[in-house]
Protein backbone atom coordinates (compact mmCIF):
# COMPACT_ATOMS: atom_id res chain seq x y z
CA UNK A 1 0.00 0.00 0.00
CA UNK A 2 1.30 3.44 -0.92
CA UNK A 3 0.92 6.50 1.35
CA UNK A 4 -1.78 7.88 -0.96
CA UNK A 5 -3.86 4.78 -0.29
CA UNK A 6 -3.14 3.15 -3.61
CA UNK A 7 -2.72 -0.61 -3.50
CA UNK A 8 0.17 -1.81 -5.64
CA UNK A 9 0.06 -5.44 -6.72
CA UNK A 10 2.92 -7.10 -8.54
CA UNK A 11 2.01 -9.37 -11.46
CA UNK A 12 4.43 -11.77 -13.08
CA UNK A 13 4.39 -14.62 -15.60
CA UNK A 14 5.78 -17.99 -14.54
CA UNK A 15 6.38 -19.25 -18.10
CA UNK A 16 6.09 -16.48 -20.68
CA UNK A 17 7.27 -17.14 -24.21
CA UNK A 18 7.84 -15.07 -27.31
CA UNK A 19 4.82 -16.57 -29.05
CA UNK A 20 2.32 -15.34 -26.47
CA UNK A 21 3.36 -11.70 -26.23
CA UNK A 22 0.10 -10.63 -27.90
CA UNK A 23 -2.10 -12.70 -25.54
CA UNK A 24 -0.26 -11.42 -22.47
CA UNK A 25 -0.87 -7.92 -23.78
CA UNK A 26 -4.60 -8.67 -24.00
CA UNK A 27 -4.64 -9.74 -20.35
CA UNK A 28 -2.88 -6.57 -19.27
CA UNK A 29 -5.21 -4.42 -21.35
CA UNK A 30 -8.33 -6.11 -19.94
CA UNK A 31 -7.16 -5.57 -16.37
CA UNK A 32 -6.26 -1.95 -17.06
CA UNK A 33 -9.73 -1.29 -18.54
CA UNK A 34 -11.61 -3.00 -15.72
CA UNK A 35 -10.14 -3.25 -12.23
CA UNK A 36 -7.39 -0.63 -12.59
CA UNK A 37 -9.71 1.88 -14.23
CA UNK A 38 -12.34 1.63 -11.52
CA UNK A 39 -10.45 1.30 -8.29
CA UNK A 40 -7.34 2.55 -6.55
CA UNK A 41 -5.23 -0.46 -7.48
CA UNK A 42 -2.26 -0.56 -9.79
CA UNK A 43 -0.89 -3.78 -11.19
CA UNK A 44 2.83 -3.45 -11.86
CA UNK A 45 5.61 -5.62 -13.18
CA UNK A 46 4.14 -8.00 -15.73
CA UNK A 47 7.56 -9.56 -16.19
CA UNK A 48 8.90 -13.07 -15.75
CA UNK A 49 8.58 -14.44 -12.21
CA UNK A 50 11.50 -15.52 -10.09
CA UNK A 51 11.69 -17.33 -6.77
CA UNK A 52 11.15 -14.14 -4.79
CA UNK A 53 8.27 -12.76 -6.87
CA UNK A 54 5.37 -11.50 -4.81
CA UNK A 55 1.78 -10.77 -5.80
CA UNK A 56 0.02 -12.59 -8.61
CA UNK A 57 2.01 -15.23 -10.45
CA UNK A 58 0.39 -16.42 -13.67
CA UNK A 59 1.11 -19.81 -15.20
CA UNK A 60 0.10 -20.19 -18.85
CA UNK A 61 -1.32 -23.66 -19.49
CA UNK A 62 -2.81 -23.87 -22.94
CA UNK A 63 -4.49 -27.24 -22.34
CA UNK A 64 -5.58 -26.34 -18.82
CA UNK A 65 -8.51 -24.84 -16.99
CA UNK A 66 -8.42 -21.17 -16.03
CA UNK A 67 -8.44 -20.93 -12.26
CA UNK A 68 -6.88 -19.40 -9.18
CA UNK A 69 -5.66 -21.42 -6.23
CA UNK A 70 -7.30 -19.22 -3.65
CA UNK A 71 -8.68 -15.75 -3.03
CA UNK A 72 -6.73 -12.51 -2.55
CA UNK A 73 -3.63 -12.80 -0.41
CA UNK A 74 -3.93 -16.60 -0.34
CA UNK A 75 -2.14 -16.61 -3.70
CA UNK A 76 0.37 -13.87 -2.88
CA UNK A 77 3.67 -15.05 -4.35
CA UNK A 78 2.32 -18.55 -5.08
CA UNK A 79 3.81 -20.06 -8.24
CA UNK A 80 0.89 -20.85 -10.54
CA UNK A 81 -1.45 -19.00 -8.19
CA UNK A 82 -3.40 -18.08 -11.31
CA UNK A 83 -3.63 -20.29 -14.38
CA UNK A 84 -4.74 -18.95 -17.76
CA UNK A 85 -5.14 -20.68 -21.11
CA UNK A 86 -4.30 -18.79 -24.29
CA UNK A 87 -4.74 -21.45 -26.96
CA UNK A 88 -7.64 -23.42 -25.39
CA UNK A 89 -6.20 -26.73 -26.54
CA UNK A 90 -7.76 -28.84 -23.76
CA UNK A 91 -11.40 -29.44 -22.83
CA UNK A 92 -11.77 -25.74 -22.08
CA UNK A 93 -12.65 -24.34 -25.50
CA UNK A 94 -13.19 -20.84 -26.80
CA UNK A 95 -16.07 -21.38 -29.22
CA UNK A 96 -18.30 -18.65 -30.53
CA UNK A 97 -16.00 -15.85 -29.38
CA UNK A 98 -12.71 -14.49 -30.61
CA UNK A 99 -9.62 -15.67 -28.71
CA UNK A 100 -9.11 -12.06 -27.63
CA UNK A 101 -12.59 -11.91 -26.07
CA UNK A 102 -12.19 -15.26 -24.29
CA UNK A 103 -8.79 -14.32 -22.89
CA UNK A 104 -9.91 -10.87 -21.77
CA UNK A 105 -13.24 -11.95 -20.23
CA UNK A 106 -11.63 -14.80 -18.33
CA UNK A 107 -8.73 -12.62 -17.15
CA UNK A 108 -11.13 -10.06 -15.66
CA UNK A 109 -12.91 -12.85 -13.75
CA UNK A 110 -9.71 -14.49 -12.47
CA UNK A 111 -8.21 -11.14 -11.40
CA UNK A 112 -11.43 -10.60 -9.43
CA UNK A 113 -10.48 -13.71 -7.43
CA UNK A 114 -6.93 -12.40 -7.06
CA UNK A 115 -8.38 -9.19 -5.59
CA UNK A 116 -10.25 -11.32 -3.05
CA UNK A 117 -13.68 -11.69 -4.63
CA UNK A 118 -15.51 -15.03 -4.35
CA UNK A 119 -18.21 -16.24 -6.74
CA UNK A 120 -21.35 -14.17 -6.41
CA UNK A 121 -23.63 -17.19 -6.90
CA UNK A 122 -22.25 -18.72 -3.67
CA UNK A 123 -24.38 -16.27 -1.70
CA UNK A 124 -27.59 -17.79 -0.35
CA UNK A 125 -29.47 -14.55 -1.01
CA UNK A 126 -28.70 -14.77 -4.74
CA UNK A 127 -31.22 -17.58 -5.29
CA UNK A 128 -29.22 -18.51 -8.36
CA UNK A 129 -29.52 -21.94 -9.96
CA UNK A 130 -25.78 -22.39 -10.40
CA UNK A 131 -24.10 -24.29 -7.60
CA UNK A 132 -21.64 -22.60 -5.24
CA UNK A 133 -18.02 -22.98 -6.33
CA UNK A 134 -14.77 -22.27 -4.52
CA UNK A 135 -14.42 -20.26 -1.33
CA UNK A 136 -17.21 -18.14 0.11
CA UNK A 137 -15.24 -15.08 1.20
CA UNK A 138 -15.67 -13.39 4.58
CA UNK A 139 -18.32 -10.74 4.05
CA UNK A 140 -20.54 -9.04 1.50
CA UNK A 141 -19.99 -5.52 0.26
CA UNK A 142 -23.04 -5.13 -1.99
CA UNK A 143 -26.41 -6.79 -2.45
CA UNK A 144 -26.38 -9.88 -4.69
CA UNK A 145 -25.50 -8.80 -8.21
CA UNK A 146 -26.68 -10.86 -11.18
CA UNK A 147 -24.57 -8.69 -13.49
CA UNK A 148 -21.33 -9.22 -11.61
CA UNK A 149 -18.28 -10.47 -13.49
CA UNK A 150 -18.02 -12.97 -10.63
CA UNK A 151 -21.49 -14.48 -11.03
CA UNK A 152 -21.91 -17.77 -12.94
CA UNK A 153 -25.60 -16.88 -13.26
CA UNK A 154 -24.89 -13.75 -15.25
CA UNK A 155 -26.44 -14.38 -18.69
CA UNK A 156 -23.45 -12.48 -20.12
CA UNK A 157 -20.62 -14.71 -18.91
CA UNK A 158 -18.01 -12.72 -16.96
CA UNK A 159 -20.25 -9.79 -17.95
CA UNK A 160 -18.23 -9.79 -21.16
CA UNK A 161 -15.27 -8.40 -19.28
CA UNK A 162 -17.00 -5.23 -18.09
CA UNK A 163 -17.47 -4.52 -14.39
CA UNK A 164 -21.08 -4.00 -13.37
CA UNK A 165 -22.03 -0.87 -11.36
CA UNK A 166 -22.14 -2.98 -8.20
CA UNK A 167 -18.78 -4.57 -9.04
CA UNK A 168 -17.37 -1.06 -9.20
CA UNK A 169 -18.92 0.17 -5.96
CA UNK A 170 -18.04 -3.09 -4.20
CA UNK A 171 -14.38 -3.05 -5.19
CA UNK A 172 -14.17 0.64 -4.30
CA UNK A 173 -15.30 -0.21 -0.77
CA UNK A 174 -12.28 -2.44 -0.44
CA UNK A 175 -9.62 -0.59 -2.45
CA UNK A 176 -10.99 2.94 -2.77
CA UNK A 177 -11.75 5.02 -5.82
CA UNK A 178 -9.19 5.58 -8.54
CA UNK A 179 -7.06 8.66 -8.05
CA UNK A 180 -7.60 8.57 -4.32
CA UNK A 181 -9.50 11.65 -3.26
CA UNK A 182 -10.56 10.52 0.17
CA UNK A 183 -12.57 12.78 2.45
CA UNK A 184 -11.92 11.36 5.85
CA UNK A 185 -14.78 11.23 8.31
CA UNK A 186 -13.57 10.85 11.89
CA UNK A 187 -15.72 9.45 14.69
CA UNK A 188 -14.88 8.22 18.17
CA UNK A 189 -17.54 5.54 18.13
CA UNK A 190 -20.21 3.94 16.03
CA UNK A 191 -22.66 1.81 17.98
CA UNK A 192 -24.45 -0.91 16.00
CA UNK A 193 -27.89 -1.77 17.35
CA UNK A 194 -29.58 -4.77 15.71
CA UNK A 195 -33.25 -4.96 16.68
CA UNK A 196 -33.56 -8.70 16.07
CA UNK A 197 -31.36 -11.70 15.45
CA UNK A 198 -32.34 -11.51 11.80
CA UNK A 199 -30.92 -8.01 11.47
CA UNK A 200 -27.57 -8.80 13.06
CA UNK A 201 -26.10 -9.79 9.68
CA UNK A 202 -27.23 -6.52 8.15
CA UNK A 203 -25.66 -4.58 11.03
CA UNK A 204 -22.37 -6.44 10.58
CA UNK A 205 -22.37 -5.91 6.84
CA UNK A 206 -22.86 -2.19 7.38
CA UNK A 207 -20.03 -2.17 9.90
CA UNK A 208 -17.79 -3.94 7.35
CA UNK A 209 -18.72 -1.46 4.65
CA UNK A 210 -17.80 1.49 6.84
CA UNK A 211 -14.65 -0.06 8.25
CA UNK A 212 -13.40 -1.01 4.77
CA UNK A 213 -14.10 2.38 3.30
CA UNK A 214 -11.01 4.50 3.24
CA UNK A 215 -13.22 7.58 3.68
CA UNK A 216 -13.98 6.75 7.31
CA UNK A 217 -11.74 6.64 10.33
CA UNK A 218 -13.63 5.18 13.29
CA UNK A 219 -11.84 4.69 16.61
CA UNK A 220 -14.13 1.92 17.82
CA UNK A 221 -17.27 0.00 16.95
CA UNK A 222 -19.55 -1.30 19.66
CA UNK A 223 -22.60 -3.54 19.52
CA UNK A 224 -25.73 -3.40 21.66
CA UNK A 225 -25.94 -6.77 23.31
CA UNK A 226 -29.21 -6.47 25.25
CA UNK A 227 -32.56 -7.03 23.50
CA UNK A 228 -34.12 -3.91 22.03
CA UNK A 229 -37.58 -3.11 23.50
CA UNK A 230 -40.45 -3.27 21.02
CA UNK A 231 -41.33 0.38 21.72
CA UNK A 232 -37.89 1.44 20.52
CA UNK A 233 -38.22 -0.70 17.40
CA UNK A 234 -41.63 0.79 16.65
CA UNK A 235 -40.06 4.25 16.60
CA UNK A 236 -37.78 3.31 13.72
CA UNK A 237 -39.24 4.39 10.40
CA UNK A 238 -36.67 2.70 8.19
CA UNK A 239 -34.72 -0.52 7.98
CA UNK A 240 -31.58 1.45 8.74
CA UNK A 241 -31.61 4.46 11.06
CA UNK A 242 -28.50 6.55 11.53
CA UNK A 243 -28.73 8.72 14.65
CA UNK A 244 -26.42 11.57 15.55
CA UNK A 245 -26.20 13.45 18.84
CA UNK A 246 -24.27 16.60 17.95
CA UNK A 247 -24.76 19.14 15.13
CA UNK A 248 -21.20 18.57 13.97
CA UNK A 249 -22.02 14.97 13.13
CA UNK A 250 -24.98 15.57 10.85
CA UNK A 251 -22.81 15.58 7.72
CA UNK A 252 -21.00 12.47 8.95
CA UNK A 253 -24.31 10.66 9.31
CA UNK A 254 -25.25 11.79 5.80
CA UNK A 255 -21.91 10.52 4.53
CA UNK A 256 -22.69 7.09 5.99
CA UNK A 257 -26.08 7.17 4.30
CA UNK A 258 -24.45 8.06 0.98
CA UNK A 259 -21.90 5.31 1.37
CA UNK A 260 -24.64 2.72 1.98
CA UNK A 261 -26.67 4.04 -0.96
CA UNK A 262 -23.59 3.62 -3.13
CA UNK A 263 -23.52 -0.02 -2.10
CA UNK A 264 -27.04 -0.63 -3.34
CA UNK A 265 -29.08 0.04 -0.22
CA UNK A 266 -32.23 1.96 -1.15
CA UNK A 267 -32.20 5.55 0.05
CA UNK A 268 -35.81 5.09 1.21
CA UNK A 269 -34.62 2.37 3.57
CA UNK A 270 -32.17 4.70 5.32
CA UNK A 271 -33.10 7.54 7.67
CA UNK A 272 -30.77 10.04 9.30
CA UNK A 273 -32.19 11.24 12.64
CA UNK A 274 -31.20 14.21 14.73
CA UNK A 275 -31.36 13.10 18.39
CA UNK A 276 -30.08 16.32 20.00
CA UNK A 277 -33.48 17.52 21.22
CA UNK A 278 -34.09 14.23 23.01
CA UNK A 279 -30.82 14.31 24.93
CA UNK A 280 -29.90 16.25 28.07
CA UNK A 281 -26.41 16.75 26.67
CA UNK A 282 -24.80 16.42 23.28
CA UNK A 283 -22.50 13.53 22.43
CA UNK A 284 -20.03 14.58 19.74
CA UNK A 285 -18.27 12.17 17.41
CA UNK A 286 -20.71 9.41 18.25
CA UNK A 287 -23.25 7.81 15.92
CA UNK A 288 -25.71 4.98 16.36
CA UNK A 289 -26.83 2.76 13.51
CA UNK A 290 -30.04 0.86 14.15
CA UNK A 291 -31.08 -2.01 11.89
CA UNK A 292 -34.38 -3.82 11.77
CA UNK A 293 -36.02 -6.29 9.46
CA UNK A 294 -38.61 -5.40 6.88
CA UNK A 295 -41.91 -7.16 6.54
CA UNK A 296 -41.23 -8.44 3.07
CA UNK A 297 -44.11 -10.00 1.15
CA UNK A 298 -43.53 -13.73 0.88
CA UNK A 299 -42.40 -14.82 -2.51
CA UNK A 300 -42.20 -18.60 -2.18
CA UNK A 301 -45.55 -20.28 -1.58
CA UNK A 302 -46.35 -23.82 -0.54
CA UNK A 303 -49.65 -25.38 0.50
CA UNK A 304 -48.05 -27.82 2.88
CA UNK A 305 -44.74 -28.78 4.40
CA UNK A 306 -44.82 -32.14 6.11
CA UNK A 307 -42.19 -32.55 8.80
CA UNK A 308 -41.02 -36.10 9.48
CA UNK A 309 -38.66 -36.51 12.44
CA UNK A 310 -36.83 -39.85 12.63
CA UNK A 311 -34.82 -41.16 15.58
CA UNK A 312 -36.07 -38.59 18.11
CA UNK A 313 -35.07 -35.57 16.07
CA UNK A 314 -38.09 -33.56 17.18
CA UNK A 315 -35.87 -30.69 18.34
CA UNK A 316 -34.21 -30.47 14.96
CA UNK A 317 -37.50 -30.63 13.08
CA UNK A 318 -38.91 -27.89 15.33
CA UNK A 319 -35.87 -25.74 14.56
CA UNK A 320 -36.42 -26.29 10.84
CA UNK A 321 -40.04 -25.23 11.16
CA UNK A 322 -39.07 -22.17 13.16
CA UNK A 323 -36.41 -21.15 10.62
CA UNK A 324 -38.86 -21.44 7.72
CA UNK A 325 -41.51 -19.60 9.69
CA UNK A 326 -39.12 -16.79 10.53
CA UNK A 327 -37.93 -16.47 6.96
CA UNK A 328 -39.96 -13.84 5.23
CA UNK A 329 -39.24 -15.46 1.89
CA UNK A 330 -41.55 -18.42 2.49
CA UNK A 331 -45.30 -18.45 2.82
CA UNK A 332 -46.51 -21.85 4.00
CA UNK A 333 -50.25 -22.50 4.40
CA UNK A 334 -49.96 -25.60 6.57
CA UNK A 335 -47.32 -27.49 8.45
CA UNK A 336 -48.11 -31.08 9.30
CA UNK A 337 -45.96 -33.38 11.35
CA UNK A 338 -45.61 -37.15 11.24
CA UNK A 339 -46.38 -38.43 14.72
CA UNK A 340 -45.97 -42.15 14.05
CA UNK A 341 -42.68 -43.91 14.52
CA UNK A 342 -40.86 -43.98 11.20
CA UNK A 343 -39.94 -47.55 10.16
CA UNK A 344 -36.23 -48.35 10.19
CA UNK A 345 -36.32 -49.22 6.47
CA UNK A 346 -37.43 -45.72 5.60
CA UNK A 347 -34.76 -44.24 7.88
CA UNK A 348 -32.09 -46.41 6.28
CA UNK A 349 -32.86 -44.84 2.93
CA UNK A 350 -31.98 -41.42 4.26
CA UNK A 351 -28.31 -40.83 3.57
CA UNK A 352 -28.42 -37.27 4.78
CA UNK A 353 -29.21 -35.63 8.06
CA UNK A 354 -31.94 -33.54 6.45
CA UNK A 355 -33.80 -34.68 3.32
CA UNK A 356 -36.10 -32.32 1.45
CA UNK A 357 -38.45 -34.19 -0.92
CA UNK A 358 -40.58 -32.66 -3.63
CA UNK A 359 -43.36 -34.23 -5.65
CA UNK A 360 -43.97 -31.84 -8.52
CA UNK A 361 -41.46 -30.49 -11.07
CA UNK A 362 -42.39 -26.89 -10.23
CA UNK A 363 -41.36 -27.41 -6.63
CA UNK A 364 -37.73 -28.30 -7.32
CA UNK A 365 -36.68 -24.64 -7.06
CA UNK A 366 -38.66 -24.21 -3.84
CA UNK A 367 -36.96 -27.27 -2.35
CA UNK A 368 -33.57 -25.88 -3.41
CA UNK A 369 -34.43 -22.54 -1.82
CA UNK A 370 -35.39 -24.29 1.41
CA UNK A 371 -32.04 -26.07 1.37
CA UNK A 372 -30.22 -22.78 0.80
CA UNK A 373 -32.16 -21.21 3.65
CA UNK A 374 -31.23 -24.01 6.07
CA UNK A 375 -27.60 -23.81 4.99
CA UNK A 376 -27.44 -20.23 6.17
CA UNK A 377 -28.54 -21.11 9.70
CA UNK A 378 -27.27 -23.00 12.71
CA UNK A 379 -28.31 -26.19 10.88
CA UNK A 380 -25.63 -25.62 8.23
CA UNK A 381 -23.47 -28.34 9.80
CA UNK A 382 -26.07 -30.94 8.88
CA UNK A 383 -25.79 -32.68 5.53
CA UNK A 384 -28.80 -31.63 3.49
CA UNK A 385 -30.12 -33.07 0.23
CA UNK A 386 -33.01 -32.29 -2.09
CA UNK A 387 -34.69 -35.41 -3.49
CA UNK A 388 -36.91 -35.64 -6.52
CA UNK A 389 -39.71 -38.08 -5.64
CA UNK A 390 -41.42 -37.93 -9.02
CA UNK A 391 -39.98 -41.22 -10.30
CA UNK A 392 -41.44 -42.98 -7.26
CA UNK A 393 -44.95 -41.52 -7.47
CA UNK A 394 -47.87 -42.43 -9.71
CA UNK A 395 -48.97 -38.78 -9.83
CA UNK A 396 -47.61 -35.40 -8.87
CA UNK A 397 -48.40 -33.39 -5.74
CA UNK A 398 -47.84 -29.70 -6.35
CA UNK A 399 -47.02 -27.20 -3.62
CA UNK A 400 -46.20 -30.00 -1.19
CA UNK A 401 -42.81 -30.74 0.31
CA UNK A 402 -41.61 -33.20 2.92
CA UNK A 403 -38.69 -32.55 5.22
CA UNK A 404 -37.19 -35.61 6.88
CA UNK A 405 -34.65 -35.35 9.66
CA UNK A 406 -32.55 -38.04 11.23
Amino acid at each position, binding site marked *: MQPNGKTIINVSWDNPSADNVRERGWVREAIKDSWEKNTNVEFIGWEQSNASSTGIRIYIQDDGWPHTRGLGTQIDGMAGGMVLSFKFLG*EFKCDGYSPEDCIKFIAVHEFGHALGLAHEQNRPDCLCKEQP*QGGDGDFYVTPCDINSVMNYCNPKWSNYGELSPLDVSGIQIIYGKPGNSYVTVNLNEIKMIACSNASVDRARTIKNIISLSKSFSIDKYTEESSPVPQKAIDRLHSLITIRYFDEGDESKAENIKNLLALQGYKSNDITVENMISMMSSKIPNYIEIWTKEATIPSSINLDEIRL*IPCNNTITKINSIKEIINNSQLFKIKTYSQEDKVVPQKAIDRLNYSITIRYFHPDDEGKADDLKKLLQTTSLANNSIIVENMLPKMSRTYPNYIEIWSK
Partner: protein
Amino acid sequence: MGFTKLFILIFFNPFHFCNNDTTKYIAPDELSLSIHQYPMKQITEYIIDYKSIKVRFTNRNQGFDSVIIKKTVRSGHLKKLFGYMNSFEKERYYNQCIEDGQIMTLLFTNKTVVLKKVRFSNYYDKHLEQIIKFINQHVGSKYSILYDKNKLISDFENCKNQ
Protein backbone atom coordinates in the same frame (compact mmCIF):
# COMPACT_ATOMS: atom_id res chain seq x y z
CA MET B 1 -58.70 -46.50 15.37
CA GLY B 2 -58.77 -50.22 14.57
CA PHE B 3 -55.97 -51.99 12.79
CA THR B 4 -57.93 -52.29 9.51
CA LYS B 5 -58.65 -48.57 9.34
CA LEU B 6 -55.05 -47.78 10.13
CA PHE B 7 -53.89 -50.13 7.40
CA ILE B 8 -56.20 -48.49 4.84
CA LEU B 9 -55.02 -45.03 5.85
CA ILE B 10 -51.39 -45.99 5.48
CA PHE B 11 -51.96 -47.87 2.23
CA PHE B 12 -53.77 -45.04 0.50
CA ASN B 13 -51.75 -42.12 1.82
CA PRO B 14 -49.50 -41.31 -1.11
CA PHE B 15 -47.01 -39.45 0.99
CA HIS B 16 -46.55 -41.98 3.69
CA PHE B 17 -43.12 -43.43 4.22
CA CYS B 18 -44.49 -46.97 3.91
CA ASN B 19 -45.16 -46.25 0.29
CA ASN B 20 -41.52 -45.41 -0.16
CA ASP B 21 -40.56 -48.68 1.44
CA THR B 22 -41.93 -50.61 -1.49
CA THR B 23 -39.79 -48.69 -3.97
CA LYS B 24 -37.43 -50.95 -5.81
CA TYR B 25 -33.91 -50.07 -6.80
CA ILE B 26 -33.91 -48.54 -10.26
CA ALA B 27 -30.77 -49.19 -12.25
CA PRO B 28 -29.51 -46.42 -14.51
CA ASP B 29 -29.61 -46.98 -18.24
CA GLU B 30 -27.65 -43.86 -19.11
CA LEU B 31 -24.95 -41.75 -17.59
CA SER B 32 -23.68 -38.41 -18.68
CA LEU B 33 -20.62 -36.48 -17.65
CA SER B 34 -20.91 -32.75 -18.25
CA ILE B 35 -17.78 -30.65 -18.27
CA HIS B 36 -18.56 -27.04 -17.44
CA GLN B 37 -16.40 -24.28 -18.81
CA TYR B 38 -16.98 -21.73 -16.09
CA PRO B 39 -17.14 -18.77 -16.16
CA MET B 40 -18.15 -19.36 -19.79
CA LYS B 41 -21.56 -20.87 -20.40
CA GLN B 42 -20.31 -23.82 -22.42
CA ILE B 43 -20.72 -27.47 -21.59
CA THR B 44 -19.20 -30.53 -23.21
CA GLU B 45 -21.33 -33.55 -22.35
CA TYR B 46 -20.35 -37.20 -22.69
CA ILE B 47 -23.45 -39.40 -22.79
CA ILE B 48 -23.17 -43.15 -22.44
CA ASP B 49 -25.99 -45.67 -22.82
CA TYR B 50 -26.03 -49.37 -23.66
CA LYS B 51 -25.66 -48.63 -27.35
CA SER B 52 -23.40 -45.67 -27.82
CA ILE B 53 -21.31 -42.86 -26.51
CA LYS B 54 -22.08 -39.35 -27.71
CA VAL B 55 -20.20 -36.11 -27.23
CA ARG B 56 -22.44 -33.08 -27.22
CA PHE B 57 -21.38 -29.46 -27.08
CA THR B 58 -23.72 -26.80 -25.72
CA ASN B 59 -23.18 -23.06 -25.78
CA ARG B 60 -25.87 -21.56 -23.56
CA ASN B 61 -24.97 -18.00 -24.50
CA GLN B 62 -25.29 -18.43 -28.19
CA GLY B 63 -27.98 -21.09 -28.03
CA PHE B 64 -26.36 -23.84 -30.00
CA ASP B 65 -26.26 -27.48 -29.11
CA SER B 66 -24.68 -30.08 -31.33
CA VAL B 67 -23.63 -33.71 -31.15
CA ILE B 68 -20.00 -33.77 -32.19
CA ILE B 69 -19.43 -37.50 -32.30
CA LYS B 70 -21.39 -40.69 -31.75
CA LYS B 71 -19.75 -44.11 -31.46
CA THR B 72 -20.93 -47.57 -30.49
CA VAL B 73 -19.69 -48.97 -27.20
CA ARG B 74 -18.92 -52.44 -25.90
CA SER B 75 -21.75 -52.95 -23.46
CA GLY B 76 -19.83 -55.49 -21.36
CA HIS B 77 -18.27 -52.83 -19.14
CA LEU B 78 -21.33 -50.69 -18.79
CA LYS B 79 -23.03 -52.52 -15.93
CA LYS B 80 -19.95 -51.94 -13.78
CA LEU B 81 -19.79 -48.32 -14.90
CA PHE B 82 -23.46 -47.70 -14.10
CA GLY B 83 -22.99 -49.53 -10.80
CA TYR B 84 -20.67 -46.74 -9.63
CA MET B 85 -23.83 -44.70 -9.02
CA ASN B 86 -24.11 -46.13 -5.52
CA SER B 87 -20.53 -45.30 -4.63
CA PHE B 88 -21.20 -41.55 -4.68
CA GLU B 89 -22.74 -40.76 -1.31
CA LYS B 90 -22.55 -36.99 -1.53
CA GLU B 91 -23.96 -34.62 -4.09
CA ARG B 92 -20.83 -32.46 -4.13
CA TYR B 93 -17.16 -33.35 -4.02
CA TYR B 94 -14.90 -30.33 -4.16
CA ASN B 95 -11.66 -28.58 -3.40
CA GLN B 96 -12.87 -25.29 -2.00
CA CYS B 97 -9.52 -23.57 -2.51
CA ILE B 98 -9.73 -23.64 -6.30
CA GLU B 99 -11.76 -20.93 -7.98
CA ASP B 100 -13.13 -22.14 -11.34
CA GLY B 101 -10.98 -24.94 -12.81
CA GLN B 102 -12.23 -28.41 -13.73
CA ILE B 103 -15.90 -28.70 -12.80
CA MET B 104 -17.95 -31.72 -13.83
CA THR B 105 -21.45 -33.02 -13.23
CA LEU B 106 -22.15 -36.72 -13.33
CA LEU B 107 -25.75 -37.71 -13.96
CA PHE B 108 -27.25 -41.19 -13.74
CA THR B 109 -30.66 -41.52 -15.36
CA ASN B 110 -33.26 -44.12 -16.23
CA LYS B 111 -35.56 -43.25 -19.10
CA THR B 112 -34.74 -39.56 -18.60
CA VAL B 113 -35.59 -39.71 -14.88
CA VAL B 114 -32.64 -38.44 -12.88
CA LEU B 115 -31.54 -41.00 -10.32
CA LYS B 116 -28.40 -39.29 -9.08
CA LYS B 117 -26.57 -36.06 -9.77
CA VAL B 118 -23.06 -35.48 -8.43
CA ARG B 119 -20.87 -32.40 -8.87
CA PHE B 120 -17.07 -32.65 -8.83
CA SER B 121 -15.10 -29.46 -8.52
CA ASN B 122 -11.34 -29.94 -8.89
CA TYR B 123 -11.61 -33.23 -7.03
CA TYR B 124 -10.08 -36.65 -7.56
CA ASP B 125 -12.35 -39.67 -7.24
CA LYS B 126 -11.29 -43.17 -8.27
CA HIS B 127 -14.71 -44.15 -9.66
CA LEU B 128 -14.97 -40.96 -11.67
CA GLU B 129 -11.48 -41.72 -12.97
CA GLN B 130 -12.73 -45.11 -14.21
CA ILE B 131 -15.64 -43.44 -16.00
CA ILE B 132 -13.28 -40.92 -17.59
CA LYS B 133 -10.92 -43.74 -18.65
CA PHE B 134 -13.83 -45.48 -20.36
CA ILE B 135 -14.79 -42.25 -22.12
CA ASN B 136 -11.21 -41.58 -23.22
CA GLN B 137 -10.92 -45.10 -24.66
CA HIS B 138 -13.88 -44.40 -26.92
CA VAL B 139 -13.75 -40.76 -27.96
CA GLY B 140 -10.22 -40.42 -29.27
CA SER B 141 -7.54 -37.95 -28.28
CA LYS B 142 -9.33 -34.86 -29.62
CA TYR B 143 -12.20 -35.19 -27.15
CA SER B 144 -10.45 -37.06 -24.36
CA ILE B 145 -10.61 -35.64 -20.84
CA LEU B 146 -7.49 -34.69 -18.92
CA TYR B 147 -7.99 -35.93 -15.36
CA ASP B 148 -4.72 -35.26 -13.57
CA LYS B 149 -4.87 -37.44 -10.47
CA ASN B 150 -1.57 -36.26 -8.98
CA LYS B 151 -2.33 -32.57 -9.42
CA LEU B 152 -5.87 -32.89 -8.09
CA ILE B 153 -4.67 -34.76 -5.01
CA SER B 154 -1.74 -32.41 -4.36
CA ASP B 155 -3.96 -29.32 -4.76
CA PHE B 156 -6.43 -30.87 -2.31
CA GLU B 157 -3.67 -31.57 0.23
CA ASN B 158 -2.33 -28.02 -0.17
CA CYS B 159 -5.81 -26.69 0.46
CA LYS B 160 -6.09 -28.58 3.74
CA ASN B 161 -2.83 -26.95 4.85
CA GLN B 162 -3.93 -23.42 3.96
